[in-house]
């Protein structure tokens, strides 16, 4: 036992898989200790906020300490954030369409470009060939470049309750800074928000946890059924074997995914919890374990150590448990790992079809993919809503398959290098 474990941890593949898997597991365990939000809490008004650090504007205006930093590139940064290269090219295009000669326009000189723009742009004017959406875009661009070269600060005003007029109470200069540590509310959203305005990372961590649970429950259900049937059918043989193999063959002929879809559909949306789905997946995927275990047992049952156990008067139960099971244990562990990873994939496929667990309670990796697809995240280019999910699914199955092949190398001497 100890030597086997040592050997297992000498297999490079197994270690890589194990480390990735443990990292995911640690993430699932540690993350909720720090971020205590409910995984499905809607925090954002609007959908698909991009990843980044969100600083509360109200709090940053109202901090007690204002620092003045005179930074060389501040103005340039400000301008480029409001006026990207694409915007400059678009402005040039409009100006050319308006009749300004192309050689007079220098897009790298912000001041002269804005000067030209100021002089020529008229929101009412129709440039030939320009569609309505483009017209709207230029109007928005025009709004955003207003006052871009100004060096004035913004005025803060408050309503005087006595006179009912606005009174200036301060200014925010362009060189004013706050220390982000002193701002009361800053929220990092490393993966932004999803279509419903939920923090994608928090959701993802919970989804990994739930998907792993589904995988384990389904894998264990499938392995237990497969193991029991395989042991009985292989060891007892005769009509027991015939009957079990009849049922197994039935299940082999009907693709298990079709069965899974049909069962999930007939359960109905309301009854489909994560555990229910896991059990249904387990109930439809034991076939290969049964077949594999059966053939192993058949080759074992005529061995002399089994015969010796028989003539020592042991019961069938004792023989299966002590003389057969230990010999196929490594095999069963490998089958379990494969079952877990394929159950996670099965849940994802089901959920993408909209037949996964009930949507309002917990997220799963499949459900997150489903939401991202329904709200067209991939068409809108909101990569943070689906790409991390794909990576998570890939990492889980990849690590499990690595562990599996690693184990295979240890337990199957023919594959040892």
């Amino acid at each position, binding site marked *: 036992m100890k030597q086997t474990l040592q050997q297992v941890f000498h297999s490079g593949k197994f270690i890589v898989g194990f480390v990735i898997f443990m990292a995911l597991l640690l993430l699932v365990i540690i993350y909720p200790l720090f971020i205590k939000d409910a995984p499905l809490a809607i925090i954002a008004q609007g959908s698909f906020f991009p990843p980044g650090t969100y600083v509360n504007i109200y709090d940053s205006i109202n901090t007690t300490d204002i620092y003045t930093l005179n930074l060389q590139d501040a103005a340039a940064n400000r301008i480029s954030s409001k006026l990207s290269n694409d915007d400059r090219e678009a402005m040039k295009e409009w100006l050319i369409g308006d009749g300004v000669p192309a050689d007079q326009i220098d897009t790298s000189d912000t001041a002269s470009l804005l000067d030209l723009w100021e002089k020529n742009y008229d929101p009412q004017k129709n440039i030939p060939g320009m569609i309505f959406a483009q017209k709207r875009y230029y109007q928005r661009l025009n709004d955003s470049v207003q006052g871009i070269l100004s060096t004035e600060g913004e005025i803060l005003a408050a309503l005087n309750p006595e006179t009912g007029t606005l009174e200036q109470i301060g200014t925010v200069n362009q060189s004013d800074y706050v220390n982000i540590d002193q701002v009361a509310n800053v929220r990092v959203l490393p993966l932004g928000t999803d279509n419903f305005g939920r923090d994608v990372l928090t959701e993802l961590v919970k989804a990994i946890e739930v998907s792993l649970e589904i995988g384990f429950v389904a894998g264990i259900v499938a392995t237990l059924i497969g193991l029991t049937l395989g042991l009985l059918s292989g060891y007892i043989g005769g009509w027991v074997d015939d009957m079990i193999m009849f049922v197994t063959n039935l299940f082999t002929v009907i693709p298990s995914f079709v069965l899974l879809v049909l069962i999930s559909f007939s359960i109905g949306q309301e009854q489909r919890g994560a555990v229910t789905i896991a059990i249904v997946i387990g109930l439809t995927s034991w076939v290969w374990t049964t077949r594999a275990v059966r053939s192993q047992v058949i080759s074992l049952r005529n061995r002399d150590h089994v015969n010796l156990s028989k003539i020592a*008067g*042991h019961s069938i139960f004792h023989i299966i448990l002590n003389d057969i099971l230990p010999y196929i244990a490594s095999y069963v562990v490998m089958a379990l790992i494969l079952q877990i990873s394929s159950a996670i994939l099965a849940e994802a496929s089901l959920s993408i079809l909209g037949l996964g667990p009930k949507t309002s309670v917990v997220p799963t990796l499949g459900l997150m993919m489903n939401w991202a697809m329904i709200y067209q995240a991939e068409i809108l280019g909101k990569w943070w809503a689906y790409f991390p999910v794909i990576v998570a699914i890939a990492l889980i199955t990849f690590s499990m398959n690595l562990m599996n092949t690693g184990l295979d190398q240890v337990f199957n001497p023919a594959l040892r290098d």
Partner: protein
Amino acid sequence: MADKISSCLKGEGLTKIFGVGRRKTLAVDHVDFDFCEGKIVSIVGESGSGKTTLAKMLLGLIKPTEGEIYFQGKKRDISSQKKRREYWKNIQAIFQDPYSSFNIFNKIDAVLLDCIKMRDGKKLTNEQKVAMMAEACSFVNLKFDELTNKYPFELSGGQMQRLMIARIFILKPKVLLADEPTSMIDACSRATILDMLMKLRDEIGMTIVFITHDIGLAYYVSDTVYIMEHGRIIESGSADEVILHPKEAYTQRLISDVPKIHEEWDLSTVQYSVS
């Protein structure tokens, strides 16, 4: 019963066919035999002649396709687990290949404890059990202290077969089926193993069915000899009768394969390969 040498194991028309249809093999073909109590009976035959299959039928590990087995004069009844346990208290075996005879996950103690449990139930104290295991081990020249907590696969082939004999020493069955107990081990341990079997027989007076492909060995150990060819028993009788005066050509060939069995044999026909 007392007036004649009683029959211990008897077979009538015993047949075993493996497989069905075209892939049918007739492993044992209508054999009749009668092993007397307290004797050493040899079954001799080439590889594949059905010796192991016959032994497994006698042990009740595989069901005969046809034929009857009588144990101590009565039709053998092993229809329930309880009856089988009772049967196996009387009939035990040593298998051909010691390397695959033990469960590699069980320690040596467990193997011997199983036998103690089978013979005496659970009424013994731990000290008595240990004393019994130590006695059995010392009978086969093994040191029990060195063996506890070891696994069978940590022993040599010869030591494993001696452990098998230690099992038999504890169980003290009426019949022992020894299926080529020495074919997988070297010549030196072979003599030791045989000596121990003989000593054990003298001690507990059991019937030994000694299966071998080596007719010289059969002559050396047995009272009665059965010769098997392609699943059939073609010749049988006392060892002297069969081996010194063989009737069948097959038996003669078996004998000529083993030189030096008796001065009468013409050694010039034997080809030695010089390597």
